[in-house]
Structure formats: structure tokens, C-alpha cells
């Protein structure tokens, strides 16, 4: 039960190893705070959507299955969007449309599909592992990118200057790509074949 | 003077030093007969012949010592008169244990009786020419060693309207064809006429690269007045002598993929083969000798007319031995620098009908380059005369991807060596394509077999 959880964190980290939910990670992580916030939101939407779709159980056709997940996660994404707009207006301005876009995030859809095939206990552990793993990954990327771009971490200035172009989309791509490579090197994974069966 | 049309791609190996031919192209051919000769049974493309003599038999010059086997089979003849001292496998350039007959020369050179000369080529009975060619054991002397009578076998529905004599000799170091054209020009034109009459062909073109002006002159004089024979000078560029490139430049036609020259109504013959045809028709003599260039680091580089089966160490000895100390010898190659086969640590190798040269390289010239990464400079793509994409094919061959190598036409590669020659990163392109072609051919045979 727990190795599933640990797996989600390290070996099969959704963002850095399985490359799920890459779009928001690129756009939002210019500041560590935003990265963390969207990580939390995505984690909540993921957990709720997966639990609900787990309860709803199997639907006949495979296409219908995917459509159902999308609707469920869309609903939760809308709810999350409302909550964020109500309580943290400046965060919602910063994250922009990426909060509602968690509806179609590949992370949410793939975990929901995975959850239905397994026992609820297994599904919960996996989802929690994945959710927390994604959250940590987003924060790490946010920290690194903010450090490189603005020389500060969570707002606290550390380095004098910074490489402004890292804040641009091009910089985001490069930082995330290099981080994924380095992470894979550290975790000792050869390449994507091994992820296939995760 | 030179023909301005040329084929796409191609390279100019050793262009600065007259393609490595300066040492031997000016000297006349020297006759040399060795003590013993080792005549291989598998000198031609096709199943090796079966020997019909035992140790101890006495054979006369030109006596048949092996019977042909299979459709591509050719009879093999004794190239000296003397006593058979061994019949067994010997180390040859490509095959560590090839069946061969070793004969000790008694220097009497007495011809076997029963030869049937057909007289002058213009009057010889047409239907007898091709059987005479087969009985003389003639195969391509340019290096391919394809049995000539099979090349002349024109199936119904096919026809041939042009015979091209390949006097291009674009390979480096080799000057045997050049000397042959200077000294035997009339005999070569006779051979061409014999072939033209045998196949009822109206046009015969002798193609010679323009780095051999004296040969062009000599052949023009010999061809003057002969019906339908003309000489065409060509631009000097390797691999002009390749069958496909020669047909493209001389006749403007392109051999479709997986087809033979006969499908575009052309037959290509080497000048040496034409001379052998003339000997067979006029004097009824089989192929017993050929001219071979021995050059590189030998004391007296020269062209030798030697009997088929002479040992390479005898050839080198006849040219005054190797001129540099033995440990400095890097490589000895049978043939030219672009398509020759390296000697395997010994010079005790017999000469076959298709071997046109022995070249000795020093250690400096024979460096084993280490393959650097490809810098995608496109030189190999420019150099390939067939228009392939060598750098991409090399990746497929290295990855063993036969499907995509086939899709990118590796089977059309003529293994001329231009891409490996020009590659700045010393990548072994040609060797990979040759290996992949053999693999795909073996796969196809296994599939069919």
C-alpha cells in the first residue's frame, strides 16, 4: 500500500518522470508561490475527481469512460476556480485560466483511468502519492525557476540579479526539461520504457 | 576533347598525383612466368568448378582442368604446362580455404591440341562465337568476374543495340587497361567486333577517361575503318568506370533499379575481356594470362603479363620486392584503393582472372582512422553517384534497421567507396552498406530457400 505512495513521490513522479500535467507547470512556475498554489489546487481536483470516478465505476465504452472523467474533473475544476476567485483574487489573477484548465490536465485524466481499474484502497494511495508528488515537483520547479529568473525564493531576494529570459516561456521549457533530465538521472531511471507499466 | 557530360556526384581520389598511376602508366608491360601457379576453381561469379585432374598428372598449356558447375559455371584451364603437385584448399584473398589446383611449371609452354581457331573476327561463323567464349572460360576482367557468355545470353523479347567497352579505368593506381589499350589496341577492337557480330549489334563504343590521351589516340587509330566502332573520351572522375555511371554518360540511359544493363539494351565489357574474346575467337586459346599492375612501395612498380594463378609474393618479387622495411608495411591491397580487398597478413595469395592490381601501402598511408561523429556536412550526399543519402543509411545500418535501410535504397548502392573517401569524420559508410546489402541478400535467399 505505502510503496505506491512513495512511488508516486519519487520513482514515478507525475511531472518529472511521467511528464503529466506539463502545460501548467511551464506557465505558472515563474514564481514559487504560484507553482505551489497550482500544485495544491491540482492535487485537490485530482483527489476529488479520482474518488468520484472511482465510485461511479466502469462505464461501458472506453470513449464514454474518458468523457465521464473529463466531465467529473471539469466540474471539480469549476468548483476550484470559484473557490480561488472568491478567496484569493490576486492568486486567481496570477494563475489565470490555468486553474479551470486542470479539468483536462493529462494528470487528472490518466490517474482517474488508473484508479477505476484498481481497488479503492490502491487508488487512494496512488492518487495521494501522485498528488503530493506533483505538488512537490511544481514547488521545486517554481523555486528553481524563480531563483534563476529573479534571484529570489518565495519573494525573499537571495541573488543580486537573475537571468530574465528564464521567466519567458522559452526559459520555462529549458528549466523544466533540464530538471526532468537531472531528476531522472538522480532517480536512476534509464528512460521512458520503464514508465510504461507504471 | 573530353566529353563534357558527366554523372552526378563522384570524387577525385589522389587527383594531385595523377590518381597514383604515374609510376606505371609510362612503362611497357613486362612478361613474367612464375615457378608454380595455383589456379582457383571459384574465380568467376557462380558455383566453383570441379577439378578433373589428380596430383601427379601432366597437363599441357590451355588444357581444361575443371568442369563448369551450374548455370553460371565456367571451365578452368591450366595456365602453364607441367605437373599437378596439389589439388586442395588454399588461402585466397577472400576465402581462407578455396579449392585450387597447383601446377609446377616445366617452362615448355606446349599448347594442348584440339584448339579450334575461327580465323578473322569479321569472317568467323557468328553462331560459334559465344560457345567459343564459354569454352575459353572468359569472365569479366574488370573485377566483377561475371561469366561473359551468360551476359551475352539475350533472352527473347530482349535486344541489345549498343556494346560499351569500359576503358575508363577510374580506379586509382591501376594502369593495366591503359597499357593494354596502348599495346593491344587492334586485338581489343577485334574482340569488340566479335561481340558485335555475335549479338548482331550495330554500335560499339569504347569509353576512355581523358586522363589517358595516348590510349584514346591508339584506340582511335585501331578503330578507324572498323564498322560501327567509335571511341568516346570521358571526363576523369571516380566512379566513371562503374557500369551504371558508364551507361548513363555514354548512352544517356539509366538502368532501372533491380534491373540489368540488358534491360536498357546495353552490354558493358572491360577492355581486357574484349582482348580475351579476340584471343578465343582468332586463336581458339582459353584465358591463361592477364596484365596486372604491381605498384605502391615496391622497388620497380610495373605492369606484368602473368599467368592466371601466379602467387602475389612472386609478383612482388618480380618487381624487385617491397621497398620499405617489413614492419613499416601497413597494408597490401588486391585491386585499386577505392574497391580493393586487403591482404590477410600473408602475400602467398593466388591471382584470379578478375584481380587487376596489387598495391603496397606504408603504415602512414594505411592508418586505421577512428570514426568521429557525423557533422552532417552533406559531402557524402553530394558524392554519391546513385543519389543515396549515405549519412542517414549509416544510422539505419548501425541500428540494424533492415526495413528502413531497404526503404532508403541501400540495395541500389554500388559500393564504390566515394562516400567513405570524402567523409571528413572518417566514418566507414561503404563497409556498413556492403554488410547490410549482404545481410538483406542473405535474408532474401533464406526467405526464398
Amino acid at each position: 500500500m505505502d510503496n505506491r505512495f512513495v512511488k508516486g513521490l519519487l520513482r514515478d513522479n507525475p511531472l518529472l518522470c511521467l511528464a503529466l500535467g506539463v502545460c501548467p507547470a511551464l506557465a505558472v512556475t515563474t514564481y514559487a508561490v504560484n507553482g505551489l498554489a497550482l500544485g495544491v489546487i491540482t492535487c485537490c481536483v485530482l483527489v476529488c475527481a479520482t474518488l468520484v470516478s472511482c465510485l461511479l465505476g466502469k462505464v461501458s465504452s472506453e470513449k464514454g469512460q474518458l468523457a465521464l472523467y473529463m466531465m467529473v474533473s471539469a466540474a471539480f475544476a469549476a468548483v476550484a476556480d470559484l473557490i480561488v476567485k472568491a478567496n484569493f483574487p490576486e492568486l486567481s489573477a496570477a494563475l489565470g485560466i490555468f486553474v479551470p484548465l486542470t479539468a483536462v490536465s493529462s494528470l487528472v485524466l490518466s490517474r482517474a483511468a488508473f484508479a477505476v481499474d484498481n481497488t479503492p484502497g490502491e487508488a487512494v494511495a496512488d492518487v495521494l502519492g501522485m498528488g503530493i508528488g506533483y505538488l512537490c515537483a511544481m514547488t521545486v520547479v517554481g523555486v528553481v525557476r524563480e531563483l534563476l529568473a529573479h534571484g529570489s525564493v518565495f519573494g525573499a531576494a537571495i541573488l543580486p540579479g537573475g537571468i530574465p529570459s528564464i521567466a519567458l516561456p522559452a526559459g520555462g521549457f529549458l528549466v523544466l526539461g533540464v530538471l526532468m533530465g537531472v531528476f531522472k538521472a538522480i532517480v536512476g531511471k534509464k528512460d521512458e520504457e520503464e514508465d510504461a507499466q507504471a | 576533347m573530353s566529353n563534357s557530360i558527366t554523372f552526378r556526384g563522384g570524387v577525385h581520389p589522389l587527383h594531385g598525383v595523377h590518381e597514383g598511376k604515374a609510376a606505371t602508366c609510362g612503362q611497357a608491360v613486362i612478361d613474367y612466368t612464375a615457378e608454380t601457379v595455383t589456379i582457383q576453381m571459384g574465380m568467376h561469379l557462380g558455383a566453383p568448378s570441379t577439378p578433373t585432374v589428380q596430383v601427379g598428372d601432366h597437363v599441357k598449356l590451355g588444357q581444361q582442368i575443371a568442369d563448369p558447375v551450374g548455370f553460371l559455371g565456367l571451365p578452368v584451364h591450366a595456365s602453364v604446362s607441367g605437373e599437378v603437385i596439389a589439388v586442395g584448399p588454399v588461402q585466397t584473398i577472400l576465402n581462407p580455404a578455396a579449392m585450387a589446383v597447383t601446377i609446377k611449371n616445366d617452362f615448355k609452354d606446349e599448347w594442348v591440341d584440339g584448339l579450334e581457331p575461327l580465323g578473322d573476327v569479321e569472317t568467323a561463323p557468328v553462331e560459334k562465337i559465344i560457345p567459343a567464349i564459354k569454352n575459353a572460360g572468359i569472365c569479366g576482367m574488370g573485377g566483377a568476374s561475371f561469366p561473359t557468355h551468360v551476359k551475352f545470353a539475350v533472352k527473347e523479347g530482349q535486344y541489345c543495340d549498343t556494346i560499351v567497352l569500359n576503358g575508363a579505368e577510374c580506379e586509382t593506381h591501376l594502369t593495366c587497361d591503359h597499357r593494354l589499350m596502348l599495346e593491344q589496341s587492334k586485338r581489343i577492337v577485334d574482340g569488340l567486333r566479335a561481340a558485335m557480330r555475335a549479338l548482331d549489334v550495330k554500335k560499339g563504343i569504347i569509353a576512355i577517361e581523358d586522363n589517358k590521351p595516348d590510349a584514346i589516340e591508339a584506340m582511335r587509330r585501331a578503330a578507324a575503318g572498323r564498322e560501327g566502332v567509335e571511341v568516346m573520351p570521358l571526363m576523369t572522375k571516380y566512379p566513371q568506370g562503374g557500369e551504371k555511371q558508364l551507361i548513363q554518360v555514354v548512352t544517356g540511359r539509366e538502368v532501372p533499379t533491380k534491373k540489368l544493363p540488358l534491360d536498357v539494351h546495353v552490354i558493358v565489357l572491360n577492355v581486357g575481356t574484349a582482348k580475351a574474346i579476340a584471343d578465343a575467337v582468332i586463336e581458339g586459346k582459353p584465358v591463361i594470362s592477364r596484365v596486372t599492375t604491381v605498384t605502391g612501395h615496391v622497388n620497380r612498380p610495373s605492369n606484368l603479363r602473368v599467368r592466371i594463378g601466379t602467387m602475389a609474393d612472386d609478383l612482388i618479387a618480380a618487381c624487385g620486392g617491397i621497398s620499405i622495411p617489413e614492419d613499416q608495411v601497413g597494408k597490401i591491397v588486391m585491386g585499386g584503393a577505392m574497391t580493393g580487398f586487403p591482404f590477410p597478413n600473408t602475400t602467398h595469395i593466388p591471382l584470379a582472372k578478375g584481380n587487376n592490381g596489387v598495391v603496397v601501402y606504408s603504415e602512414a598511408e594505411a592508418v586505421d582512422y577512428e570514426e568521429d561523429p557525423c557533422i552532417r556536412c552533406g559531402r557524402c550526399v553530394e558524392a554519391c553517384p546513385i543519389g543515396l543519402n549515405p549519412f542517414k543509411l549509416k544510422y539505419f545500418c548501425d541500428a540494424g534497421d533492415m526495413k528502413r535501410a531497404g526503404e532508403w535504397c541501400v540495395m541500389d548502392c554500388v559500393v564504390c567507396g566515394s562516400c567513405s573517401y570524402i567523409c571528413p569524420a572518417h566514418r566507414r559508410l561503404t563497409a556498413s552498406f556492403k554488410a547490410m546489402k549482404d545481410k538483406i541478400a542473405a535474408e532474401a535467399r533464406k526467405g526464398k530457400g
Partner: protein
Amino acid sequence: MKLHLTPAPHVHSPQTTRALMGNVLLALAPCAVAGVVIFGAPALVLMAVSVLSAVAGEACWQRLTGQKVRVNDLSAAVTGLILGMNLSPRAPWWLAVVGGLFAVVLVKGLFGGLGDNFLNPALAARAFLLVSWPRYLTTWAAPLAADAVSGATPLANPSGYTLGQLFLGNIPGSIGEVCKAAVLVGFVILLCTKTITWHIPVSLTLSTLVFCGLLGYNPIAAVLSGGVLFASVFMATDYVTCPMSTKGQLVYGVGAGLLIALIRKFGLYPEGVTFAILLMNVATPLIDRYTKRRVYGYEKEAKA
């Protein structure tokens, strides 16, 4: 007797990767000398620093990833020198170091080293520096001779300089690009040593001439100002990132010229050359796919 058994062919053309890169360095020499003559010592320091950082970066990366250190094929030195010549003489030294490392490690090393990258390392590094620190790369030092402290480049006020000045190069600009005469000398060197073919430089310069003319610039001044000539001779002809066939190279040149004109006319950055060539580098795999040659013995092109 010990004989090598390596397969045919047994001779090799004298041009090796190292020799080719040596030719490029030789061709760059006139521009480097001109840059130092015009801008003095800081130009020399910058070029040296960027070459060193590129070479050191490549050596460390190759040792780090356990490859054989191939720095002696001079490709890193060429990248470093070209990058150094793209900077303005007043740029700080660390800019050259960051650019050098970015070029050699991120653009080339991560993709597998020489021959595996799809963007020209020096050009990508220049774009990265231009985007990160625009002020270093767009405020120009005046040449030693002139007194104007930071005059605008010919791109900023095209009418400010006579064609003669533009050609000889005592105008503000980056180190290697200013003296067009030196670039032409380099071009001739590269052509004579058969390192490059004329297709890309000529097609790029002509298409820039035409398209800038169409968009209302004085064509000659447009070509002579900014880095068009330098880039078309040294950066656009980088083997690894330009198309293989001559047909593809012509398309590449014309496309780059068009983009240069568009970016100069409508774009934010005055100097369109960097991004134009980078965009054509990105399109090169597609150009290569659709300019394949007909194989002997086939009617139409081989399947892509």
C-alpha cells in the same frame, strides 16, 4: 607480416573535421583582427573569454557524461569565437562565459555533441543573451576613432552613415560584424578551401536585398548594416543545422532573407538576422524532408 584489414576505400580525402574547423577559424581571423583594430583591447578579451569558456565547457561536459573529450576537433573553439564576435565590445566578460556555456552545454552537449544539435549553438546563445540582457547587446560602443560615446547603430538611423563607412566598419556594432571587407575576405577563404559552397551566403544576401528593398529600406544599406553578411557567411552555413542538398540550401537562404526583412520591419528587435536564421534552423528538418534527390533508377523521389 602485420597488415591492417580495414575495408575499402583505402585512401581518404585530406579534409577532416578538424581541418574544416581550422579553415573556418582561419576565415574568421580577418574579422577578429578588424574587430580588435576598430574596438581595441576589450574586443580581444571578450573573444578570448568566450572561446575559453566554450572549450572548457565542452571538455567538462564530455568528461561529466563519460564521453571521450573531443575538444581538439576545434568545433567548440569555432562556436566560442563566433559567439565572441557577436557581442558588443562593451559587453561584460561574464556575458561571454554564460553565452559560451549555454551554447556548448545546452544547445549542443545535451543533444549529444557535435552533429546532433538542431540549432546553431553560437546563434542560439546570442539569442538567449539578447533576450536576457538586451541592454548589453544593443548599446554599442563607438569605434576608437570616432568620439560619439554610444551612437546608434546603422539600423537605428540608417541615413547616419555613408556606405563607405558601413563597408569598412568604423561604425558602432558588434565585434565581428562591423567590417564587411573582412567578412568578404573570410568568405573567399572559405570558398577557396571548399569548406562551404556559395549557395547559402549568396541566396541569403540576395533575398535580404530584395525583401528589404520591397519593404522600403535602401537595399544596399540594409545588407551592409547589422550582421547580415557575417551571419550568412559564418553562422548560416554551419553544416549541422543547414539543409543537406543545394536545393534545400537555396530555400533556406531565401526564407532567412524574407524573415530578416519582416522582423526588421515589424519586429521588436532591430537585428532580425539572429532570429531569422534560428527559425530557418528549426525548419531545416522539414526542408531536408521535401528536397530529397531522385535516386538513380527510380522515377520519383524515394519515400520520405
